[in-house]
């Protein structure tokens, strides 16, 4: 199965937020009570019942020109996913054959470590502390359908397809900056940007926190080696020097 991906073009987005609602509809997520906080952006942040959110970025105007960018914020489906690396529960987070990072709430133990491991601050937790996030509509894409957000998008700002095809499609004039092609082993959600990613509210170089990499590569093996080493050293000592038998202990007199 080839790896699938989403291509998001903020410049093509009209901010209708159909994707936000289509996502809620497919995943059967209830609405939260919100208030207007002086922005169209609502709810204010991703939550357990909001897997995909349009972030509104109003850039300082120059000569009456207002640049208003609409950027979809959601799980990026990293190839090398920090959440999966740090997760202590097998099967709670898993990769589908399409490359989506999906979750299983029954296996999730609610430790919330994935939130610390995610370079994009995506995982949210429901009232039982179980992970909730975009899963690239893993139940739709296994059946050959496109994710609900891509299906509903009226302007093609969210496109779904084979990752390789999407990458070659995205190389259009004015859209030279493709975000997420190589970062974290290649993201499953790519962005076609006209400007620096920072302008759209994304890190230039997203990376898994160094402490997790260190832990994964050094500390994890060290725990086994340490335990094995201590046991082996004990046995070796027993064989080489033997026990300190009572009658052999010399008194310092």
């Amino acid at each position, binding site marked *: 199965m080839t790896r699938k991906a989403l291509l998001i073009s903020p410049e093509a987005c009209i*901010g209708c937020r159909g994707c936000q609602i289509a996502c809620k509809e497919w995943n059967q997520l209830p609405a939260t*009570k919100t208030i*207007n*906080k*002086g*922005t169209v952006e*609502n709810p204010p942040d991703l939550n357990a019942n909001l897997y995909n959110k349009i972030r509104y970025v*109003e850039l300082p*105007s120059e000569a*009456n020109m207002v640049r208003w960018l609409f950027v979809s914020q959601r799980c990026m489906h990293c190839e090398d996913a920090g959440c999966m690396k740090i997760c202590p529960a097998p099967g709670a987070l898993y990769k589908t054959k399409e490359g989506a990072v999906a979750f299983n709430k029954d296996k999730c133990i609610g430790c919330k470590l994935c939130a610390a491991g995610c370079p994009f601050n995506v995982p949210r937790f429901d009232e039982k502390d179980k992970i909730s996030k975009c899963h690239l509509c893993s139940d739709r894409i296994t059946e050959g359908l496109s994710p609900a957000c891509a299906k509903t998008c009226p302007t093609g700002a969210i496109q779904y397809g084979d990752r390789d095809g999407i990458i070659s499609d995205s190389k259009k004039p004015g859209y030279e900056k493709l975000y997420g092609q190589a970062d974290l082993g290649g993201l499953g959600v790519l962005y076609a940007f006209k400007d620096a990613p920072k302008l759209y509210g994304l890190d230039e170089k997203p990376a898994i926190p160094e402490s997790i990499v260190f832990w994964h590569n050094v500390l994890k093996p060290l725990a086994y080696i340490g335990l094995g080493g201590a046991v082996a050293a004990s046995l070796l000592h027993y064989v080489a020097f033997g026990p300190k038998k009572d009658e052999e202990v010399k008194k310092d007199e």
Partner: protein
Amino acid sequence: MNKKHRINPTIKLFYGVEGPNDKPKKGGGLPEDVFVSGDAKFPYVATTYRVSEHWQTGVLTRHLPWMQELMPQQFVEISKELAAEKGVKNGDKINVSSARGKVWAIAMVTDRFKPFKIMNSTVHQVGLPWCFGWQYPEDGSGGDSSNLLTPTIGDANTMIPETKAFMVNVEKA
């Protein structure tokens, strides 16, 4: 422009009064609707519009929690310049009033609205949607419709009610 004309002479006056001291006729509105256009009490130009999240006045869509989540409350977009003048911060509750009525709205201080320079004076414009109001949400947290502010006159060309340009005042609630 003829100085005698305080209003567009071709607009449709639904109640048929000619001057400010005429009594309004049955079924009509108040003369203030029209003749306070230049009143210093209402110095800002206002316009109304829809939001894509609600259909028309929102009486159908405001019952849908998903839509309500996206667009929960009446808001008014004002320029940064006017906000600074009025001491209004983004997200503050402010009152928008016209000769006809008054609604509260959440201030959305934005670069999308800019003051105009008209005949050497600065004219501020504000804008608010009319997708809120009557009945829902029942706790009244949604706010009222901006149609409470609009004058009862017809557009000169189409004769439909003039809801796109009228005079209001804005102050902190």
